[in-house]
């Protein structure tokens, strides 16, 4: 299937699917069987042993992301992530990367709204070296204008690549800013250009000193290693760094919206039109009505090659080349639920949008077909076995969960909670999310030709 998968949600799919797993049956009720502990300085440690290859994934996740940035400093969390490779009191610029490469390791780092993470994948006998240097840059980062200023140009180029060169990226940025008019989830992770251009070395150091502390981090090691080995190494490395006061992550609350919003962008650079409707939704962490698990099942039923949206809009009505839904519930604060579709050549976007809204109305009015519930739940629980195939998936799942307000138990018990979802739960969740018409944002991407015609 070429388009339906490729069309959807490249990064979201990865992030969202991280929580979409579960074991084959409820009796086992364990997904990864991790072991965990806490160092005296507050660093949480999670170990998932997997002996397939003599390799470990070593990840350090900080409980801070772009949504924690001071006003006017958008992009600083991501900028700091880049600058964490610039050296410490003990190592020169890029030297940690050189050490990793010389030891046959791979590394990366990433920033999201709620977390910032760093990882290396290396032969298991090199784990101590990784921990030594990751701990070093938790405490001893050194930054000067000489290294920070060229890197600021790099993140500006990164912004051009992701957003400024891409009409779809531009529209996504506006859509998100509309869905969150007050909450910092409305700010792009990479930052607004005008603010990025002003970010300083001191801004990065301030952010680092405020948030980067052992008691605000989670260490996850997955692969060919035991819990005791990891704890011993962690004590010797991270354990030397004293705990510090870290601010509460008190985010402002998104107010109820009085009016639905619509953002539309037409450009000669658009080759294929598309649209989406985004809604506020509970997250796993903020879920007063207990609907997160039902929303996970709902999105599973609505999306994919045999999902309701594809069946109706692509196969039956022949209006769309792609159509689906997603649930993004893995955030500290409000989550999102969305639907999307892209028209067949010759079908205008209004017609497709109308049909999509009619389908949403039908889901709300009639509920989802009962026979789809058990199938969807089985697919979700089956995916647990696939999630165990490589060690780094476990590390990413726990990192994301533990920096977004969830616990190890939430992850391990996830399949049981999916199993417990009833048809009425799914239908109630669908009604709740889709009925918030004033909170929704419709984003329309058009070819310049389409708009002129």
């Amino acid at each position, binding site marked *: 299937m070429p388009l339906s998968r490729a069309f959807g949600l490249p990064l979201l799919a990865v992030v969202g699917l991280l929580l979409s797993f579960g074991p084959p049956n409820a009796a086992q009720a364990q997904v990864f069987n991790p072991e965990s502990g806490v160092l005296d300085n507050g660093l949480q440690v999670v170990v998932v042993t997997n002996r397939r290859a003599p390799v470990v994934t070593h990840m350090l996740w900080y409980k801070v992301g772009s949504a924690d940035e001071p006003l006017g400093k958008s992009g600083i969390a991501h900028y700091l992530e880049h600058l964490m490779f610039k050296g410490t009191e003990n190592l020169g610029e890029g030297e940690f990367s050189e050490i990793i490469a010389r030891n046959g390791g791979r590394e990366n780092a990433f920033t999201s709204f709620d977390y910032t993470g760093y990882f290396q994948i290396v032969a298991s006998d090199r784990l101590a070296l990784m921990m030594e240097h990751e701990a070093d840059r938790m405490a001893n980062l050194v930054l000067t204008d000489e290294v920070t200023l060229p890197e600021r140009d790099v993140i500006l180029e990164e912004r051009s690549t992701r957003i400024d*060169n891409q009409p779809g990226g531009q529209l996504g940025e506006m859509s998100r800013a509309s869905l969150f008019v007050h909450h910092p989830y409305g700010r792009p992770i990479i930052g607004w250009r005008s603010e990025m251009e002003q970010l300083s070395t001191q801004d990065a150091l301030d952010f680092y000193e405020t948030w980067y502390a052992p008691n605000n981090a989670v260490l996850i090691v997955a692969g060919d290693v035991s819990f005791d080995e990891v704890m011993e190494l962690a004590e010797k490395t991270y354990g030397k760094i004293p705990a510090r006061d870290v601010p509460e992550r008190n985010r402002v609350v998104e107010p109820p919206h009085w009016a639905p919003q619509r953002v539309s962008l037409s450009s000669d650079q658009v*080759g294929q039109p598309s649209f989406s409707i985004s809604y506020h939704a509970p997250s796993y962490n903020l879920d007063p009505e207990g609907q997160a698990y039902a929303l996970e099942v709902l999105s599973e039923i609505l999306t994919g090659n045999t999902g309701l949206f594809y069946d109706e809009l692509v196969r039956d009505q022949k209006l769309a080349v*792609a159509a689906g839904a997603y649930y993004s519930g893995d955030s500290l604060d409000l989550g999102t639920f969305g639907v999307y579709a892209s028209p067949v050549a010759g079908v205008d976007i209004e017609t497709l949008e109308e049909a999509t809204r009619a389908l949403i109305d039908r889901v709300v009015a009639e509920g989802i077909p009962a026979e789809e519930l058990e199938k969807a739940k089985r697919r979700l629980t089956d995916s647990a076995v696939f999630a165990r195939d490589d060690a780094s998936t476990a590390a990413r799942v726990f990192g994301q969960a533990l920096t977004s307000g969830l616990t190890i138990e939430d992850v391990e018990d996830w399949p049981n909670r999916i199993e417990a979802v009833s048809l009425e739960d799914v239908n109630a969740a669908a009604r709740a999310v889709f009925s918030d018409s004033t909170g929704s944002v419709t984003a329309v991407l058009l070819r310049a030709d389409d708009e002129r015609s």
Partner: protein
Amino acid sequence: MQTLFALLVAGRRSFRLAIPTVLLAVVLALPATAAEVKRVVSPGGIEAWLVEDNSNPLISVEIGFRGGAVLDPDGREGTASMTAALLDEGAGELDSVTFQEELNDRSISLRFSAGYDRFGASLRFLTRERDRAFELLRLALTDARFDEEAVERIRGQMQASARRRAQDPSSIAWTALGRLVQGEHPYGRSARGTESTLAAVTADDMRAFVKDSIARDRMFIGVAGDITAEELGPLLDETFGDLPATGSATVIPETSPRSEGGLAIIERPVPQSIAVMAQPGITRDDPDYYTAFALNYVLGGGSFASRLMQEVREERGLAYSVYSALSPRDEGGLIVASVGTRNDGVAESIDIMRDEWRRFAEEGPTAEELADAKTFLTGSFPLRLDSLRGIAGMLLGMQMEDLGIDYIDRRNDYIEAITLEEAKRVAKRLFDDGQLSIVVVGQPEGLTATLDAPSGS
């Protein structure tokens, strides 16, 4: 919406702008394991290579057939890709919906793909679905329906993708470069087709592709996971026994990629110019391949220590993404590179890359650079084997590239054996900035085109 969440995670190191599908076929990934590789030959004589691993109730199967988009009829480019998209859209008694629902309800992942030189199938399933998974694969390979509804639906989807690529700066650049460097050779065409060539593909074209190309004489199979050699043997006969023993002769024309150099500009109103470049390269079976592989790592092959990364990004902040890569093909091969820089800086980026290219040819790597490359390339080899799919894919690659069943044990020896002297010789042999054809898409400042952009771009 693919756009909405493009920024959820802004990683520091996703520095490949886009996979340059037109030029860069699969640069073979070659992992390492202590696992034993078994050669399984079925009672009917069908061979597969297997790594048994029962740590999870999972099985991964990777299959390759020689031949792919390179065989697409002229004017109907995209035939192999469209075939790949339709094999799982109904087969035997099962129509599209039934087939897809069964895959989904059983959590069986079955995907087909078409590169220039290879048609692939990738199958992944839980042990409990083993027999049905192989049966659905058999149906797809031997009895695909190509129902009109499915053909038109998939055509529409692929054309939508083609329209999107036609406006994407990076896709525009790679497509034009492929045409420029490969000329009329099939490698210069789009493997996924264009809106108009996809319109011309018929169900009969796809049936002909299957008949000519899905045959046992060009098939290779890698299997990893919760299955024994004894269990696999009979399944091979049941699944592949009905395939024709031989397909039609497939001769890929010889290539002579452009080596005259030059620069073409395609104007697009974007703030960041995308520059892509290529020169003639090396085939996988060339005796200098491993040396070239290590050399590319030093020049721009992925680490932050690479020369292109250091000079263009780290020192000057000119780019987020800058890299070089080997793009080996069955016939010929290319060395490619790419950078994305703001319009008023792209000329400087290209100058630096050309200078590094020239310096590399003249001096080769330093002893330290070569030593670092060797420790990375040997040390990272096992990382590729931490999933069943990685293992099965390697078993397939080992067969298709004729590397030998003990390749996993020997591979690092090839890397270790590279000497500095040899590295310098091969650098001089391969890298020539005068041979670089360059295509820039954007509004570059301070650059003068010496070539016309290929027609159709």
